[in-house]
């Protein structure tokens, strides 16, 4: 087995005192692409945020391990340096900090002190990656996400992904708000990352993304748990039939997290 392994075991998460995740189990190995699907409000973003260490989410039970290391003991920046990456559903806007300065800091944060990337090399790589993603050159000098359109923000997340080259990435609705051409471009970028080492978990509502990036595993979340897993055919069936049949199969009336199972 190549690459890193992210193990999520019996994960329970609260936000502001409300229980959202109620025992999530999931393992992502290097080289694998996973898709997580599920209706609105079933805990998908909560899972992603808890893995990355969002300050508002409190893990009350369970474990997250990266190559056996306890992720929950790590600060947010340490998680990133250990190889985790989260493309956020709603990336922050940061005024006065140029995209390019930010990216360079991010890359250097993954390198040893004294081994910072040279400015020339950085610019070359950034230009090339922006090219792949069909991004306007002046996006580099604009302030981080400030005034970016929904689609531009998503592309910018993938730009970071491609430049930081993490071991395991979680992409939270990277396809929402993208027009069809942009979706193809973003998928191309993600597929370029694909190799025997890189592990990826894509949260999505649509089969559309999975047509371009075929997942090895598909999981469905409801009520703050993974309730069903399968191969790419599961996503296909969800696209055609929706979630009703799963709810029936499992006897779930209300799939959101507020309900007791």
């Amino acid at each position, binding site marked *: 087995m190549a690459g890193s392994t992210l193990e999520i075991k019996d994960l329970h998460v609260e936000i502001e005192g409300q229980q959202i995740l109620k025992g999530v189990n999931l393992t992502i190995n290097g080289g694998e692409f996973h898709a997580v699907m599920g209706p609105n409000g079933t805990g998908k973003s909560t899972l992603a945020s808890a893995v990355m260490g969002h300050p508002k989410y409190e893990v009350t039970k369970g474990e997250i391990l990266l190559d056996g290391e306890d992720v929950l003991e790590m600060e947010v920046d340490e998680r990133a340096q250990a190889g985790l990456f989260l493309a956020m559903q709603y990336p922050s806007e*940061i005024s006065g900090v140029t995209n390019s300065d930010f990216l360079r*800091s991010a890359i250097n944060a993954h390198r040893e002190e004294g081994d910072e990337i040279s400015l020339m090399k950085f610019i070359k790589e950034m230009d090339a990656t922006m090219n792949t993603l069909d991004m306007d050159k002046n996006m580099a000098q604009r302030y981080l996400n400030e005034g970016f359109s929904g689609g531009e923000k998503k592309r910018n997340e993938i730009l970071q992904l491609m430049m930081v080259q993490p071991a395991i990435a979680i992409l939270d609705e990277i396809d929402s708000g993208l027009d069809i051409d942009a979706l193809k471009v973003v998928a191309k970028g993600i597929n370029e990352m694909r190799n025997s080492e890189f592990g990826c978990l894509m949260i999505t509502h649509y089969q559309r993304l999975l047509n371009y990036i075929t997942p090895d595993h598909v999981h469905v979340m409801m009520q703050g748990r993974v309730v069903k897993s399968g191969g790419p055919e599961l996503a296909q069936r969800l696209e055609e039939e929706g979630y009703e049949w799963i709810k029936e199969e499992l006897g779930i009336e209300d799939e959101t997290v507020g309900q007791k199972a």
Partner: protein
Amino acid sequence: MTVEVSLPYNKEYVTQFSQGLQEPQWMKDLRLNALDKSESLPLPKPDKTNIQGWNFTEFNHHVAGETIDSLDQLPVEIKDFLDEEEEQKNLVIQRNHTLAFGTIDEKLKEQGVIFTDMATALREHGDLVEKYYMNDAVHMDEHRLTALHAALMNGGVFLYVPKNVQIEDPIQAIFWQEDPEASLINHILVVAEENSSVTYVENYISNNKEEKTSANIVAEVIAKDGAKVSFGAVDNFEKGTTVYANRRGVAYRDSVIEWALGQMNEGDTVSENITHLIGDNSHSNAKTVAIGRGDQKQNFTANITHFGKGSDGYILQHGVMKDKSSAIFNGIGKIEHGASKSNAEQESRVLMLSKDARGDANPILLIDEDDVTAGHAASVGRVDPIQLYYLMSRGISKFEAERLIIHGFLAPVVKQLPVEAVKRQLTQVIERKVY
């Protein structure tokens, strides 16, 4: 009630000082008149800051500085203000109270541009200076500090741009307070005639951590019809200097005055930046960034007053507060009756880095006309934990993430300063003050 303050400088002193500089008669008269007024006029009353006990009168009034023959003779701290790559063609360096170095592009000189220290300007262009000096913008008898200023003015520059002259290269002035007890009562007069344009930037620096003195700065900017003046400043007086800074613009028809002020003093500071949009379609953009640390007390007022129709004003004030410092940011957008179709916008934000610091943002809109638009945004808060999380999720340490956010918060002024070296120097000052 006015507190009695007796000035250490009397009529005889002021008369001799003026004569020693061979000033025109009008200037001597103004000084003496102002000296008289300074005893009876009250101090200004900045909103929510009591300045009654501040030192505005104890200092060494006149200290000559040595001239320099070449910029190589400057110490590093002053060289920092100058671009190494690009030679500064238009530069005045004032050392204590006298001109140490001055140069202006020959081509500009031929076009009638004047850029020189105030003493020389008064001797050589007395009539021209008289036309504008404390006439259109700041008045001598507004309060005790303007009167004191007029009576004891001991430095500054005069910048005159004739009609239709567009100056590409920035004009730079460095006010170097080498003597730790020297006051600086500095007068900057910028006159841009019709359809001219100019970018001016000034740096203030002193070294008096222990010694006490005071600075009283008045800058007047006159933009005639269609003129454009961009005014940048980095104030960096040390702890011992109490600062009063009054920068005021008067904008006539179709003119533009832009301010980018990095107010980085270490001592107690009261600063007002007022622009009068007199002419129709005149425009002003007033940006200030400030940092408070230690037990420093500061009061900043940015005011744009609209008289002309279709005039447009935008105020931005960003402050970072540390330790036990306190600062009040007053943003005033005022639209006078008759200034229809005008627009007054402002944004005041204060970032608190310590729980013992105090920061107030007071946005005020005073509108005496119906057909206008106006808006304001104000906030006082800490570094946003969600922004921190976002940056840290890319591997950036908490320290570095905060640093990026703070520099970003102060970027609006840094970005607008014209000379690369001055941008870099302000960035360094910010870095030093925040960490």
